[in-house]
C-alpha cells in the first residue's frame, strides 16, 4: 500500500487541478482571447471566432461628469459607453477597434468615454485623464484622447509626463497656458471623480469596461469581430 500511496496522492492532485481549471474556465467558449491580439480588420464582417454571449443586466447607475464626452448622434440606436484608462494597454489596444466600429456603424453608434484612471496601478493614469479633461475644456477632448492612446507606449515609461502632455496640448492647437491652469483645476478633478463614481455605481472593476445600451459587454467580446455582432444585434433590436 505504501508503494502506491504516492501515486494515489499525485493522481488526486492532478484530478483536483484539472477539475478546478475546467470548472473555472468552462464558461469560456474557446481559445484565449486577448484584447490587442484581435482579429485582423480584413476579417469578413460578422465572422466570429467565439460565440457572442449575452450582455449583462441593465444598470442605469448614477450620472457621470456632465456634459459627457460623446461621439455620434444622441438618437443612435446603439449607445456605447467606455470606461477607460489612458495608461492601460488593453484600453490602448481597444482604441483602434472602437474607431473601426464608429467608422462601420456611422450615425447608428453613439460613443461616450468615461474616465476611470486606475490609481495607483498606473502612475500616470490620473495625469493623462487630467490632460484629456483639460483639453476638453477647450473643446479638444477627443483630439487629446486619441493622441494619448496612440502614443501610450511613448509616454507611459516617462518619469515626468507633464511636459510631454503640454507638448501634446500644443500639437492639438489649444491654448497651452490655459491648459496648464486647467489641468490641475478642481473642475477637471471633479469631472474625473464624477466619472469614477459612475463607474463604481455600475460595478466597474477594471478597464476597459464597455456598456452597450446600459448593459455590460463581456470583456472577451471586445474584439472587432464580436463587438460588431453585438452592436449589430442591438441596432436590429431597436428597429
Amino acid at each position, binding site marked *: 500500500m505504501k508503494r502506491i500511496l*504516492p501515486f494515489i496522492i*499525485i493522481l488526486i492532485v492532478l484530478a483536483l487541478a484539472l477539475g478546478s481549471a475546467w470548472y473555472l474556465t468552462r464558461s469560456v467558449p474557446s481559445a*484565449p482571447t486577448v484584447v490587442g491580439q484581435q482579429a485582423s480588420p480584413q476579417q469578413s464582417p460578422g465572422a466570429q471566432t467565439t460565440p457572442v454571449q449575452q450582455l449583462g443586466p441593465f444598470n442605469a447607475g448614477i450620472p457621470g461628469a456632465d456634459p459627457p464626452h460623446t461621439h455620434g448622434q444622441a438618437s443612435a440606436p446603439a449607445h456605447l459607453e467606455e470606461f477607460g484608462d489612458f495608461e492601460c494597454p*488593453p484600453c490602448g489596444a481597444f482604441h483602434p477597434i472602437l474607431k473601426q466600429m464608429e467608422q462601420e456603424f456611422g450615425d447608428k453608434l453613439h460613443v461616450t468615454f468615461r474616465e476611470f484612471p486606475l490609481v495607483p*496601478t498606473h502612475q500616470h493614469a490620473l495625469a493623462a485623464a487630467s490632460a484629456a479633461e483639460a483639453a476638453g475644456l477647450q473643446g479638444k477632448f477627443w483630439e487629446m484622447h486619441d493622441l494619448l492612446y496612440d502614443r501610450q507606449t511613448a509616454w507611459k515609461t516617462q518619469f515626468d509626463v507633464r511636459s510631454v502632455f503640454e507638448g501634446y496640448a500644443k500639437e492639438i492647437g489649444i491654448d497651452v497656458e490655459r491648459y496648464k491652469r486647467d489641468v490641475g483645476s478642481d473642475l477637471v478633478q471633479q469631472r474625473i471623480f464624477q466619472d469614477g463614481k459612475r463607474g463604481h455605481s455600475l460595478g466597474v472593476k*477594471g*478597464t476597459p469596461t464597455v456598456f452597450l445600451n446600459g448593459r455590460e459587454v463581456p*470583456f472577451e467580446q471586445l474584439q472587432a469581430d464580436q463587438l460588431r455582432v453585438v452592436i449589430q444585434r442591438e441596432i436590429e433590436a431597436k428597429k
Partner: protein
Amino acid sequence: MKKVYIPAALLSLLGLVDALYLTVEHLTGETVRCTILSGCSEVLSSRYAVVAGFPLASIGAVAYFTVFSLATLAAFGYRAAGTLLTPILSAMFVVSLWLIYLQAFVIREFCQYCLFSAAITSALLLLVVIGRFVLKPASV
C-alpha cells in the same frame, strides 16, 4: 533526506495553485484587463506571456505539478525522483530569473503573481539544495 521533500511538495502545491490561477485568468481574459488591484495586465498581455501558443502560466503549472509529483515520490523513498528534482528546479529558477529580467527591464511592470511564483521556485531550489548537499542524509 525524506523530510525535505514534504515541505517541497507543499511548496510546489502553492506554486501550482498560483500558476493555475494565472492560467484560468489568462483563458478567461480577466488578467489582461487592467484593474485597481493588479498590475498584471501589462505583463500578462505582453508577447512573452504566450509560448508556442500556450499561456506561459500553463507551462508553469505543468512544471509545478512535475515538481510536486517528484517530491511526493521522493518523500516515499523513490530516490531517483529526488535526484531529478535538482536539475528541474534549477531550470525553473533560471526561467524565473529571465522572467524577472523581462518584467524589470523590458516590460517595466511587475505582476505580483509572477513574483510569487519566482519566490516559490527559489525557495524550492534552496530547500532541495540544502537537503541534498548541505544536510547530512541521516540528520535531514
